[in-house]
């Protein structure tokens, strides 16, 4: 099992919330290197690395930076640390245990994109993350690593923490931007894209916490070396989580493309009680579920896409044989109903229908036809909304209905007999 320790440094037992410790272990060593490369050189390294956004969408980071228009408007860097995808617990590691990794990535990325203001958007429930990050920002200001003329370089950067207040949808980048502007977190129609019309109508780059934390590593080892760690078009290592019915739930770092089976059995310690796998959610509950026959695929963006699912946040939830899939589906449906922002009818109404139908199934008040009704409702949502929340609600439910129909029918019969 090729476990890596480029991003995840818990094994060192060092308190990386202290700037001194971070600096002692090579922290901010890439700042002089970035100055040497210049902004275009940094972007070239990130492009060469093939780094794809670690928030879930997997868009190439260097390409995203390249979309910034060449005009005189001030540019903003926005960090998406609104970790909220059910089943996910990876950005929390940086925010609570290695906050300067993200902040060094912010400095390098702001320099590369010529942004002088950065907002870090952390979800409201992350009290500890907010405290640690705010303290880390303060440490950097007093040491001259933020503010005006950073370390005598002539480069200025202000970093502000902006906290959410309990809305999953703000993890969607344009909803997050609305939220920074003080508005309800309702996603915007795109285009215009944030690169051209982002926060306060200015050119904006929105990057995930893990994406930014990878930037110093990429500069240190070189873009090509990072790309070579993973599979073609899926460069680098990735934080992966394993939770649910496993013996050793936890957070690990593996090269992109590591088979899911190895992650579950070698790192996650296998299924509780030696049971068989019923289903897995590959990267947060927005992702279509996989059967136990699909776990030998490479765990990367393209591998998951090829089986009709998504890498998402790469935090796996394992559901063991013997579990009640209708109840699991109920939790998923309830979540997306609760978190729909309400601006698009198919999502606002459709997520409510999904939840209501699953509740009826759970109560034993519906028969097998409800499965087709669910698929029909999912099809009515999919593709008909401003943002991906609609798909996030529809895809996992539809995947359960299509891939696990015999299991659902057995559960329906069992409820009818009870």
């Amino acid at each position: 099992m090729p476990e890596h320790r480029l991003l995840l440094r818990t094994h060192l037992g060092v308190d990386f919330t202290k700037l001194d410790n971070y600096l002692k272990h090579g922290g901010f060593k890439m700042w002089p290197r970035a100055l040497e490369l210049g902004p275009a050189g940094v972007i070239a390294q990130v492009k060469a690395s093939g780094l794809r956004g670690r928030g879930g969408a997997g868009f190439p980071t260097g390409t995203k930076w390249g979309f910034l228009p060449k005009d005189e408007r001030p540019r903003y860097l926005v960090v998406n640390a609104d970790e909220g995808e059910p089943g996910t617990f990876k950005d929390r590691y940086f925010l609570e245990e290695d906050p300067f990794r993200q902040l060094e990535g912010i400095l390098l990325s702001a320099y590369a994109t010529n942004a002088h203001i950065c907002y870090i958007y952390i979800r409201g429930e992350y009290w500890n993350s907010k405290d640690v990050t705010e303290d880390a920002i303060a440490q950097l200001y007093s040491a001259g690593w933020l503010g005006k003329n950073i370390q005598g370089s002539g480069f200025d950067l202000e970093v502000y923490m902006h906290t959410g207040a309990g809305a999953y949808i703000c993890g969607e980048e344009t909803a997050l931007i609305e939220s920074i502007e003080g508005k309800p977190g309702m996603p915007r129609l795109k285009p215009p894209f944030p690169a051209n019309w982002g926060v306060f109508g200015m050119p904006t780059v929105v990057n995930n916490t893990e994406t930014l934390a990878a930037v110093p590593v990429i500069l240190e080892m070189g873009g090509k070396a990072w790309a070579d760690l993973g599979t073609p078009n899926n460069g680098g290592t990735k934080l992966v989580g394993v939770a649910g019915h496993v013996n050793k739930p936890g957070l690990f770092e593996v090269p992109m493309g590591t088979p899911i089976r190895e992650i579950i059995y070698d790192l996650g310690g296998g299924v509780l009680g030696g049971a068989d796998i019923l289903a897995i959610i590959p990267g947060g509950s927005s992702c279509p579920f996989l059967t136990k026959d699909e776990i030998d695929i490479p765990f990367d963006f393209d591998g998951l896409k090829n089986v009709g699912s998504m890498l998402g946040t790469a935090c796996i939830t394992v559901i063991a044989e013997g579990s009640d899939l209708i109840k699991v589906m109920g939790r998923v449906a309830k979540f997306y109903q609760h978190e729909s922002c309400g601006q698009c009818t198919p999502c606002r109404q459709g997520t409510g229908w999904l939840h209501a139908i699953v509740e009826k199934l759970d109560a034993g008040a519906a028969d097998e036809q409800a499965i087709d009704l669910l698929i029909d409702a999912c099809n009515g949502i999919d593709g008909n909304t401003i943002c991906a929340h609609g798909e996030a609600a529809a895809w996992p439910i539809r995947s359960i209905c299509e891939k696990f129909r015999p299991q659902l029918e057995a559960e329906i019969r069992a409820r009818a007999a009870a």
Partner: protein
Amino acid sequence: MREAKMADSSANGLAFSPQTKARIAELLTRYPRKQGALIPVLWLAQEEFGWLKPAVLELVAAELQLSKASVLATAMFYTMLYKRPHGRFHVQICTNVACYLRGSDDLVATAVEVLGINPGETSEDGLFTLQQVQCLCACERAPTLQVNKTDYFDVTPNQFRALLEQLQTDGLRLGPSIGWPGADESTNPPDASTGTEASYA
């Protein structure tokens, strides 16, 4: 005209402390538009007054020179901005998939039994608000829950029962709160309308 009117209503018994005023002034330097500071200022208002009753929203609107409607729209959207008073202890149990698989429903049952209230309710003594919360994103340590600003991971029903009983004892000593942990209780006594929705009409 509108701004002057709102300033009048905010003078109606409510004002930010000098410390909060200073923090708002600093927040305003971080955003090119005043509305950017709205959510941070609503957080500060909640810390100071316990919850965002209509008069507090009017005060925020006056402070940031925003329309009352835009302040209300934002406040209503976010679940962590309280539109009604909460108990001294806000107990939030995650019941999403990963925690469900690890037994979170047993924790909900434990809370209902010990506290005598259902999820979504506040106890009559104003000590506890119980809620099911969406994923807290610590799934490798499921089941998880939060009490006010503190996380609890890998919680068993017995541990949870002991925790709730300890909070009940603490609560008897401290009495009901004004809704938000750390709010200034010397100047903002508990609201009589605990557990009821305010009218924002």
